[in-house]
């Protein structure tokens, strides 16, 4: 899996015909390629080095999941133990809790977070007047730039059962305040609603761009046929969004077990832990805090492989049924 800089350079397809722009001569050899293209390689070098070192070397370290951790050997690990740590994870009493929590949080986020931007884009597209539209867009993009720590901090002050503005507001209607952040039953809702609040506007940009590129003749034709505005949305706007939706759906499926570590970690407290302990937070606790390096590497790898499998699977399905795919 590991690709070092040397291997990459050696893999340069020197035999591929290189269209030599420079001084109009064709060169087919590796040395010829390097003579005309060395400046491009120089420009790429920092990016290739950073990626090789910080992304591919850790992939090389995945073998740790199959080995006993040995402090002296470091990243490559010690004695080979096969699937021992995976077995330990599958047998762990926490296994199904972790899977259930992770899937519940990420699937709900995926579904709601996937549909909300489409609805927002369709609605914003209906706003008459460029300035009002502009203002709405600017305002809805804004929360995307607020840090996760601040968003969770806002959740805590707003939801505080004694002094929070949301319990105060609900109190006006006689709704008794509960501690939403300490209640396992509300964890997923609070998480997903705040996710939508933060990213829905930003994620709608790409759909708004697709909507603005629709041929105006389509609208005129629809109107001549007597279509109402809801019918135009249904039969003109929505179909125009489908290709983009498919691509984003595939990409999202690649993160089906990637419930956002930082936000869940920050929202965790001893009371909501039954609903909020997910694979990534568990890996952090047993790996970084308890130094069980091999075991937590195995759990992390399990997570990555499932995600990757979902990505490939969704991509194949999309290729077959929607004629759209990432590769």
């Amino acid at each position, binding site marked *: 899996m590991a690709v070092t800089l040397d291997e990459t350079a050696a893999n340069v397809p020197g035999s591929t015909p290189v269209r030599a722009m420079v001084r109009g001569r064709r060169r087919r050899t590796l040395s010829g390629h390097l003579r005309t293209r060395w400046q491009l390689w120089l420009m*790429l070098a920092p990016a290739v080095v950073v990626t090789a070192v910080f992304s591919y070397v850790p992939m090389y370290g995945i073998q*740790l999941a199959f080995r006993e951790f040995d402090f002296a050997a470091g*990243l490559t690990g010690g004695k080979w133990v096969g699937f021992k740590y995976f077995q330990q994870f599958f047998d762990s009493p926490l296994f199904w809790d972790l899977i259930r929590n992770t899937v519940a949080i990420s699937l709900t986020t995926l579904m709601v977070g996937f549909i909300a931007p489409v609805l927002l884009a369709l609605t914003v597209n209906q706003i008459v007047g460029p300035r009002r539209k502009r203002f709405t867009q600017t305002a809805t993009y804004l929360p995307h730039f*607020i840090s996760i720590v601040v968003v969770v901090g806002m959740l805590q002050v707003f939801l505080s059962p*004694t002094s929070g503005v949301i319990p105060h507001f609900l109190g006006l209607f006689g709704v008794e305040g509960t501690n939403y952040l300490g209640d396992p039953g509300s964890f997923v809702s609070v998480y997903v609603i705040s996710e939508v609040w933060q990213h829905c*506007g930003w994620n709608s940009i790409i759909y708004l761009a697709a909507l603005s590129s629709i041929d105006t003749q389509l609208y005129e034709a629809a109107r001549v046929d007597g279509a109402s505005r809801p019918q135009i949305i249904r039969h003109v706007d929505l179909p125009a969004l489908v290709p983009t939706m498919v691509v984003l759906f595939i990409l999202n499926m690649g993160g089906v077990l990637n419930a956002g570590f930082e936000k869940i970690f920050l929202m965790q407290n001893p009371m909501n832990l039954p609903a909020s302990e997910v694979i990534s937070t568990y890996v*952090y606790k047993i790996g970084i805090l308890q130094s069980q390096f091999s075991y937590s590497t195995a759990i992390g790898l399990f997570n990555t492989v499932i995600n990757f499998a979902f990505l490939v699977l969704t991509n194949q399905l999309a290729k077959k049924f929607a004629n759209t795919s990432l590769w």
Partner: protein
Amino acid sequence: MLTTSLRRRTPGDLLFSIAVGTVVALVLFATIYPIWFVSIASVSDPAMVATGRVWLIPQGFSTFGYEQILADDRIWTGYRNTLLYTVVGTALNLVVTLPAAYALSRREFAPRRALMFFFAFTMFFSGGLIPTYLLYRDLNLLDNWLVFVLPSALNVYNLIIARAFFENSLPEELFEAAMLDGVGYLKFFVSMALPLSKAIIAVIGLYYLVQHWNDFFTGLIFVRDYDKQPLQIVLRDILLSNQAFAGGAGGAGGSGGGAYAQQFADQIKYGVIIVSTLPVLLVYPFIQKYFEKGVMVGSVKG
């Protein structure tokens, strides 16, 4: 898009317009109100906020929260660190990303497809937390401020956006003319391509800037030394460390006990949210006009 002049006004249309207006108003309220509430709560009388008497405009007036924040060294150390990491980090990001994106945009560069795969693969597959942690340990990056700028030097998503921009927005004739004059790739990139790419530099510069400013993960996992911690870690300690313990003193302002201390702790929290988010909010309006451009360029070809 339907223009007003084209639209026939039927009762159904009117109803639809009202529905759209209502939904938009609700969305705007839900988006803006939390930010507005934090702003007014940060300068209101803490007791009025805690008892639910602050809704739309500040009630009473208190700068207690801001005074406490000004006097708190942790926040300013965090601010200084984050400023350093953000400035150095973003500069490094641009130096790494832009030339690489340009090289990958050259169609005559045969290995570019293989290289693109080399980069894009890391978006979907990674070594995971522990191998990364052990690697940083071997590289002496733990508790080292370079951990905030080096490993994040390239974001593949930004690389793809920048490459798409160079591919679609730079006139090929310009390049051919420069080549005829014997100008190399490097010189062309620096003296011709970059000056024509201000929009994309602004967009990915902002993405990187916000990424560094909001980075919480790096400090949490890889840094123990509190003097090196960024603002987000300090924020976590002030905003969240006394979570769910009503009555516990929060931040630097905890004096006395019970609900009284909580009120003041809350005011510090409101103030800290404003102080930490202000820089991003101040940059936002200036760069905001480039957003659509950046996202659209990126969506042309993934």
